[in-house]
């Protein structure tokens, strides 16, 4: 590992830590500032003000916001994210379990979506071939199918045909809803990049040396075209993450998005802040992996 790569990774880790700190602090403060403050839903559900005030006192919610934030940050050092009011349990294990579910969903979706890459190489190599004629319209349609729409469409398909299960916790609908537009995006990008790589001087030189078209495509053009596609891996991971929020709520997948949605509705401050923290960690980790992969295949980015 070269020193430039180490320095690059160190810078990215530092940036990720700043991101995590800002997001979770913002979530903590914002939920506190929300109208009615924490536990508002107890009032709505018929609880009286005295009960809520007592609960506030017991949970330490009546102290100044800065003190509470200080305590919360202090707890972070011990991996203590405070207690959830709704679940009446520590936040850390709940958030970790749900984050693992979200990560699992995202990993399955990403694995399915990677099919787009080899298909893109093939369609990019022969833009006028029969394969492109079949794949391109499908890909354009799927790119236009954002996860929330895909999830609803797939649910409809599932209930009207019974081809796959819609029980909460089954992976079929949520993973496909996330994977299909992503696969199509990867296919479109890889196709475009491959077509451009085939016109690059070094690839044309390889073809001129008399290498077989297959070898020119897969050994010379494909790796070269993978580089710019990996360049937007960070963007794709971000979109996977934000898409999973809607998909989780629509399909009932017990992930971080669904947990956070419930926590926001109940003004469960510590749970919201915990979710934001864990979510930022997951997202930052994904971005970090994307950056490192990119730095490995494209040394130029290490300077960024």
């Amino acid at each position, binding site marked *: 590992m070269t020193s430039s790569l180490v320095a690059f990774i160190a810078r990215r880790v530092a*940036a990720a830590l*700043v*991101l995590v700190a*800002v*997001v979770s602090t*913002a*979530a903590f403060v*914002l*939920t506190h500032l*929300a*109208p009615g403050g924490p536990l508002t839903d107890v009032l709505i559900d018929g609880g009286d003000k005295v009960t809520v005030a007592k609960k506030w006192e017991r949970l330490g919610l009546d102290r100044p916001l800065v003190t509470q934030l200080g305590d919360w940050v202090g707890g972070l050092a011990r991996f203590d994210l405070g207690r959830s009011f709704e679940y009446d349990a520590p936040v850390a294990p709940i958030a970790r379990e749900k984050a693992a579910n979200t990560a699992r969903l995202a990993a399955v979706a990403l694995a399915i979506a990677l099919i787009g890459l080899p298909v893109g190489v093939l369609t990019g190599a022969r833009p006028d071939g029969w394969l492109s004629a079949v794949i391109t319209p499908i890909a*354009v*349609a799927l*790119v*236009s*199918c*954002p996860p*929330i*729409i895909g999830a*609803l*469409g797939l*649910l*409809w398909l599932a*209930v*009207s045909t019974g081809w796959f299960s*819609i029980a909460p916790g089954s992976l079929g609908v949520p993973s496909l809803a996330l994977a299909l537009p992503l696969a199509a995006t990867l296919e*479109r*990008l890889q*196709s*475009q*990049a491959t077509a*451009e790589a085939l016109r690059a001087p070094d690839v044309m030189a390889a073809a001129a040396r008399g290498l077989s078209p297959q070898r020119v495509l897969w050994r010379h053009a494909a790796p070269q075209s993978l*580089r*710019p*596609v990996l*360049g*937007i891996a*960070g*963007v794709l991971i*971000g979109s996977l*993450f*934000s898409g999973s*929020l*809607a998909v989780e*709520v*629509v399909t009932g997948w017990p992930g971080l*998005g669904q947990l*956070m*949605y419930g926590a*926001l*509705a109940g003004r469960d401050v510590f749970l*919201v802040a915990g*979710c*934001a923290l864990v*979510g*930022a960690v997951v*997202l*930052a980790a994904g*971005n970090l992996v994307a950056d490192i992969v990119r730095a490995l295949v494209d040394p130029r*980015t290490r300077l960024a």
Partner: protein
Amino acid sequence: MTRVGLGILALVATFAAAAPVLAPNDPATPFLNRAYAPPTRIHLRDLDGWHTPFIYRQVLADRVLSRYVDDTSTRVPLQWWRDGRLFGVGTDGGPMLVLGADPLGRDIFSRLLFGARLSLGVTALGAAGALMIGAVVGALAGVAGGWLEAVLMWIADFMLVLPAVYLLLVLRAMMPLSLGWTTIFALMAVLFAAAGWPQVARGVRGIVSTERTRDYAQAARAIGAGPFRLVGHLLPAASGFLAVELVLLVPAMLVAEATLSYLGLGFPAERPSWGTMLQDTANVRLLADAPWLLAPAALLFIVVLGLQLVLGARSERTHLKAASRS
């Protein structure tokens, strides 16, 4: 393909603009005994032969199963230009439900048309805002250079990796739940603009900082053009990029609106957007019997598809270029 896409977008925009004329019914009126009613079919002929367009009155046959039968004994002729609406039927034969009814018996087609105004309007406003902020910030950074460029781009980079949808959710949740639809409209547009500008700014900065080394920019500076005048000379070079960015931002914001409203944090039920209407699909088992509840999702798909067709391969090229530049 670009023309097909433009055609789709123009058609949807026209439908949204002409909603009060095109909608056969009031979007907020629940019709008695019409919950989950299927789309009213428009007929041209019956056993007697051909007629002007007519419909049959729907009659509730089974309240539990929401089953409806057509009353084929009388033809209800379609009336043109009644009460300032393009088409419809009188109260005795109606209501006419082009795309069926929602769980409260409201006309989905009319709600879809009026919802388009909110969904497309807030998206267009948000995208325009993001484009404007991004162009100004990017041009400023590219022309100024030095520490100002570093700080502005650092902020943009930071905002790009934020979990935007989650933050939108937190921001929206900290505000009062019941807001007027105009407030929500303004709020969403501001939030969308705030979330969308960074990627525009990055691209514009890249274009402006290469462009300002060109001869024409040097010449402008040599004859004494200040930084603002210089930006005016340099920005046209970014116009192609800005056009592509606009088309890329719109789908993301449409989906964000749909998500927020679906989650109950967007437009209220009495002024529904497409996202609000999708709340009716929450009971997925009903979808098999009432797929017309998915009409807003289908329309959203069509709009995004239209945008994709307009862009063609430009979308991929922009992404790839941005990736190799950063």
